[in-house]
């Protein structure tokens, strides 16, 4: 089975500073890493290949140095990778990104499972995985915490929802976005690194993909960033204090009354 893992190179967030005036990230001099949440997608893809055979192909759309992220994915155990890079892609929003990644997956052909991280730590939208599913017209399961079963016809997953878990069964091929619970990522090994260095990573541009030039990059992106601002914290804290045995009773009464007034108990 062919497992395709779209990954994103992101700035390492511990080192990130914000430009106070523009509200945007200062990217200069910041190390680039694989989006940490994509590591779980890479790991589960490798494990499924170990169980079912086949291959894991990692793809990434980004500048030329995103090749480093692909080689790191190969060092972890992916079989190959494709870099999708072109000036025409610059400024893409999640819509245009999904469009291009879907075109790349179509060119690779014959996908079994397409496995994405839940979201990227920089943009934080979580839209690209579902976008790919939409452009490829494939079934989608988001927030997958466990892959219970995969064969050529069906895939059964347990997805994380607010009140617990939900078990979904989909036709194949399918797109999954996965959360941390799915599998703990492995570290790249020396042998993996050596292999990753030698593997050829093809770079595909707009001309290599069957795409409409008007739907690429900034031009093809319907999203406009109108304003960047800091959200106001609206939560209010109410502290009920008990310092000794005598004050416990009144404190509990106060808390119960507080919750009752809000019809929480």
């Amino acid at each position: 089975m062919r497992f395709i893992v779209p990954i994103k190179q992101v700035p390492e967030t511990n080192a990130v500073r914000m430009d106070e005036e523009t509200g945007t990230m200062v990217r200069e001099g910041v190390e680039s890493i694989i989006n940490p949440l994509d590591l779980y997608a890479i790991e589960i893809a490798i494990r499924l290949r170990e169980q079912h055979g086949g291959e894991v192909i990692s793809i990434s759309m980004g500048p030329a140095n995103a090749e480093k992220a692909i080689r790191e994915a190969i060092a972890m155990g992916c079989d190959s990778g494709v870099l999708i890079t072109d000036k025409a892609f610059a400024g893409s929003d999640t819509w245009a990104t999904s469009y291009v990644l879907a075109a790349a997956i179509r060119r690779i052909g014959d996908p079994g499972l397409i496995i994405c991280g839940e979201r990227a730590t920089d943009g934080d939208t979580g839209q690209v995985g579902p976008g790919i599913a939409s452009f490829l017209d494939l079934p989608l399961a988001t927030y997958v915490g466990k892959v219970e079963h995969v064969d050529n016809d069906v895939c059964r997953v347990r997805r994380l929802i607010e009140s617990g878990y939900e078990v979904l069964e989909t036709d194949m091929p399918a797109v999954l976005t996965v959360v941390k619970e799915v599998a703990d990522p492995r570290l790249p090994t020396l042998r993996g690194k050596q292999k990753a260095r030698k593997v050829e990573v093809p770079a595909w541009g707009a001309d290599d993909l069957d795409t409409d030039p008007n739907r690429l990059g900034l031009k093809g992106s319907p999203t406009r960033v109108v304003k960047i601002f800091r959200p106001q914290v609206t939560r209010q804290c109410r502290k009920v204090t008990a310092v000794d045995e005598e004050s416990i009773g009144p404190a509990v009464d106060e808390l119960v009354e507080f919750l009752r007034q809000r019809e929480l108990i």
Partner: protein
Amino acid sequence: MSTTPREQPGRRAKDGSAAPAGQYNALTPDIVRQLQEIVGQRYVIHGDAEKLQPYSHDEVPDPEYAHMPDCVVRPESTEQIAAIMALATRHRIPVTPRGAGSGLSGGAVPIYGGIVLLCDRMNRIIEVDPQNMVVVAQPGVVTNEINDAVREHGLFYAGYPMSVETCYVGGNVAENAGGGKAVKYGVTGRYVLGLELVTPKGEIVRLGGKLVKNVTGYDLIQLMVGSEGTLGVFTEITLKLMPLPKASVDLLVLFGTAEEAIESVPAIMTTAGVIPTSLEFMDRTSVQAACEYLNESIPYQQAGAMLIASVDGPDEEHVRQDYEAIGELCLQRGAMEVYVADNFTTSERIWSVRRNIPEAFAIVSPHQANEDLVVPTAAIPKLLEAMLKLSEKYGVTIPSYGHAGDGNLHTRIIKNPDWPLDKWRKTLPLVLEELYHATAELGGRISGEHGVGHKRKPYLSMFLSKQALEMMRAIKRAIDPQNILNPGKILDS
């Protein structure tokens, strides 16, 4: 105004050593007023036990080694420090210099009370001189801030204690701090080119300068480095800088046995021909505790020991050749797996195993001895053997980990959680005594980088000859005849 009641002549300090009879005078309200005049009223902490308490201990967890100061003064200039020392000399008041208090030997603990001289306001980087590749800093500068200040010049300060984010450079020099990168870069002393200091009598002395070579007279700088605040109070430190490495990689190597791991340590340097930045060893007990604590999913259960080897260099290609040479050598010598971390995510994951060992054992029992043994690098396997025997003989856990590449092991001796406290208190000195004997026999010493302080003082004669001890005492007497500067540390005069 109350001061701590003065002890009777011959009272004993907390470490059991006798204070010379009637040596020190009480800190009178008048002296406090004079201290306030020197540094300003708000920079003297006095008469408030709660505010003084943080200055009664360092990072040594055992309260047995703590002692309250009578007051804390926070000077902001060399002249103020000179005035404080002159005042203390006139009245025979003990003075204990203090940096960030992250020490592990009790060096900054005022065991005879008196004045704690806190360097936190002496926190300016005076000069960055890229042409000469030096930085001049006051003692209260946080070590990491030096690197923040010189990075833009493509330089870095290679002294690297593990507490780099909190410790002060003055403390680093006073303890001759080592740390994780000593294999390649050596310890703090290698980088100290110049010092300005205040003597116990209150004189200001300048030593060395922006000089790579200097044999003009005795090397008093290196005498001051590692003197644990017993010979002078540093006020200005000139440090040598190095070109900032452009690339670095960390390897985590899993071995089946501790022997395979530890025997690979010298081979990495001799056979593979690479001097790593760091070369850390972790035995099975340490690895398992840390990995369980971290929920780490690397296959640690099968590993008898692990090494972390870090390399840095001017570009990625150099670094790749070095780490491949180390990795291949380890695989040839039977390593089960070699993991490679060349970015923040993976590097943090590898180092967090090493960094969380102390935390992981703190859960097992809060009662433990934190050792700092150092032996010739090639003698580490024998030291490990001795520790294993002691562990079996006395029924205590002795995890072993540390800077294997430079022979410095941070052994811990951990109380069996089922034991009553008095059994532990009886057993520990026996274990330590035997452990120190084994270390001495291997040509080792009791402290590689934490210092002696008052914590290790009772054992010094196991490692130093009578003549050597007398030379040290003579130096102390010559520089500090009244024995007022950090008395009771390293050795009794």
